[in-house]
């Protein structure tokens, strides 16, 4: 009804009065600074990254960079760093996302029922997520310290000194798992908060009906709660995956991508290539590849967000 009235009004005004045009122009005036800013500082750099990635600076100080087409990409794909980057990024993103979401969901189920301390307990439980990334990373680096760290002490008490003295961050077999555990702890409260909010909208009468029918709690979670929260779960998985794929702080502070590249993911490798080896063209190429890979996650995210925008439009 509203849209009909709206379009009538539009039709009435547009042929003669310029007031509508003036309003549209004024709207664009408000929009312009933000659009120009985003274009100049986000999308133009993205275009430039593609351009830079197609150049190469020959060795020698005074030499200018020359156009080489896709040569950098061919180097990357045929070299061995690409393989471990893909494997590490995939494992890192997968395990961190699954860990954060499973933990966030289960904790949300546990915290759904309220009592006097609910507010304060929730404030404490989201602290890891609120903590600056570098602080969490420094803390976990210290947690894994083989002599003084909390983790080694707990393990030593439980399983004896051999496991307790392990250098988790210095061992290529355990370093990636160690940073994944730290990242799960750091980021799970985001999923926790969303799932806690989502649980508010689960239809209580359905849960009660299932309980009357004699369904046990795990059954109710699987057949009633999860299906009705499907859109929330999908969005949370996408968001945490995008954040995790791009997350630099934790790994850089804890391991700098080492030992022997075993914890390098795209952001850390790009930083090292660009600002450690000053190979800007190659770093740009890795950046473009990272963005291209991220599109796998970005496209469904955009579709999801635009769908809800269209519904309200």
């Amino acid at each position, binding site marked *: 009804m509203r849209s009909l009235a709206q379009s009538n009004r539009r039709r009435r005004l547009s042929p003669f009065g310029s007031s509508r045009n003036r309003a549209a122009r004024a709207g664009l005036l408000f929009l312009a600074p933000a659009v120009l800013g985003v274009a100049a500082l986000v999308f133009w750099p993205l275009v430039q990254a593609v351009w830079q990635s197609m150049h190469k600076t020959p060795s020698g100080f005074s030499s200018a960079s020359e156009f080489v087409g896709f040569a950098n990409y061919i180097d990357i794909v045929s070299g061995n760093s690409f393989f471990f980057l893909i494997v590490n990024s995939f494992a890192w993103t997968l395990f961190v996302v699954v860990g954060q979401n499973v933990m966030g969901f289960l904790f949300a189920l546990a915290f*759904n029922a309220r009592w006097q301390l609910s507010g304060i*307990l929730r404030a404490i439980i989201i602290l890891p997520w*609120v903590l600056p990334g570098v602080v969490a990373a420094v803390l976990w680096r210290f947690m894994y310290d083989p002599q003084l760290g909390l983790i080694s002490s*707990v393990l030593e008490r439980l399983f004896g000194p051999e496991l307790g003295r392990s250098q988790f961050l210095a061992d290529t077999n355990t370093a990636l798992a160690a940073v994944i555990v730290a990242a799960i702890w750091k980021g799970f409260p985001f999923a926790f908060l969303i799932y806690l909010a989502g649980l508010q909208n689960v239809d209580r009468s359905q849960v009660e009906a299932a309980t009357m029918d004699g369904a046990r709690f795990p059954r109710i979670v699987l057949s009633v709660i999860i299906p009705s929260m499907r859109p929330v779960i999908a969005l949370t998985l996408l968001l945490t995956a995008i954040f995790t794929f791009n997350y630099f702080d934790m790994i850089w502070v804890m391991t700098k991508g080492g030992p022997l590249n075993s914890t390098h993911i795209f952001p850390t490798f790009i930083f090292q290539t*660009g600002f450690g080896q000053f190979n800007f063209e190659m770093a*740009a190429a890795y950046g473009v590849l990272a963005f291209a890979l991220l599109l796998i996650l970005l496209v469904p995210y955009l579709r999801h967000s635009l769908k809800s925008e269209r519904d309200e439009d």
Partner: protein
Amino acid sequence: MNQRASIQNRVFQVLITATVAMPLVWMLGVALKPSSEPFSSPAQLWPNSITFDNFLSSWRPEFQTYFLNSLIVSFATVTISVLLGLLGAYGLLRSPRKIRWLVYPALLMGQMVPAASIIIPIFAMVRNLGLIDTHLALILAYIALTLPLSTVMNYAFMRSIPKDVIEAATVDGASTFRIFFQIVLPLSVPAVVATGVWLTVVVWQEFLFALAMTTSQSMRTLPVGLNDFIGQYGIRYGELMATSIVMSVPVVILFLFLQRYFVQGLLSGATKG
């Protein structure tokens, strides 16, 4: 779906919280441990006696410089980004459908562009402008990181203003500018606060750009400074942990203050899909 917690559930909730918070308790314990008390191995969760010495010595001159740099950069970025985002959100709201459907997806996309994918060109740009190792370099980079998000957040809040209010004013002949200043702006105060706090939390802890674009110690921000401390401090973990805590306190307080808005936003944002 909300019920009162049973006794077992309450105990369970407390146990979970204690487990999650254990690294934080330990961090605080290490920061409060007197330097005379040696680290025992295996480690203790809490020291036998406590002192604030580590907190006092963490407030050293370099740290004050880092703190000031973080304040300057955060304040400038958040002011510019929130202002442009607020104006942009209103522009988006008043734009023809066609333009809205061009700009809005671009903003959502821009918000998700990985920082690592644009750091090389932004570094080159800043270097060509001769701005490396200045506050302005970081402010420009941080506007790139926050402006899409700021616009999208403000827009999401602004859309909850009933359309009838704006339409009625339009029919009464109010100009686009007048509607902004007299109707939209007063209603947007919570949006500006929420966006401002959120962007502050993001910028305060930004590490990647700060690491790449500050070369001298006098330009370092807190996250980079803290990372430098790891090497310099050797095994002075007490001071390292105290510094970490001092640096976290401002954003933790801001966030706890924002939490109400944030959870509301999640409720409306995450459940409409």
